[in-house]
């Protein structure tokens, strides 16, 4: 096997395709989640059937997003997979160790505002991003 002079690495080309697929699934999930969050109040005035339909659609698109993410991780090379999974592990860990005290503080009124789940999602997202960038820098 002789390496040729490629315009784009086959690996890069495959990852680019997977990133596009991942982007489409995440966008679809975000759109359906927005619909589920705001639809009952603003679009169909809490009609039970439509709310259940939106929730079902949200779960179905969510499953598609998970499968797309799984495929994306499987097709990463071993170093990229290591960086990605490390970042994912740190994000899940931070979500857990911050999320539990966060909820408990809300239950016992230690904090004077509602411990919104959205904050945790943002925290996990930012933690994942920072960890991913750190991992990429570390093995640059």
């Amino acid at each position: 096997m002789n390496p040729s002079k490629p315009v784009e690495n086959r690996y890069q080309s495959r990852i680019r395709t997977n990133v596009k697929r991942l982007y489409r699934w995440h966008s679809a999930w975000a759109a359906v989640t927005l619909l589920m969050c705001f639809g009952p109040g603003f679009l169909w005035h809490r009609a039970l059937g439509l709310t259940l339909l939106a929730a079902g659609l949200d779960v179905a698109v969510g499953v598609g997003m998970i499968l797309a993410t799984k495929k994306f991780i499987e097709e990463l090379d071993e170093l990229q997979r290591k960086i990605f999974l490390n970042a994912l592990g740190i994000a899940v860990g931070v979500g857990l160790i911050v999320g539990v005290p966060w909820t408990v503080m809300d239950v016992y009124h230690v904090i004077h505002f509602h411990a919104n789940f959205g904050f945790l999602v943002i925290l996990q997202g930012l933690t994942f991003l920072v960890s991913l960038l750190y991992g990429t820098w570390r093995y640059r």
Partner: protein
Amino acid sequence: MKNRLKVLRAERDWTQAQLADALDVSRQTINAIETGKFDPSLPLAFRAARLFGLRIEEIFHDQDPPL
């Protein structure tokens, strides 16, 4: 673990990108292996050995003391 990947690549006048393409990994992975920041898995080490027509131990050297 030490390796001779950079030397073997240079002997053939290949770039990191070309070697990455031949081994179906990213250029970053080749760079991390060459600089000793990352040890490849056994399947990837076998692919590299096949590519260079060498045995694994002729490319990768264990640095740990014997048991």
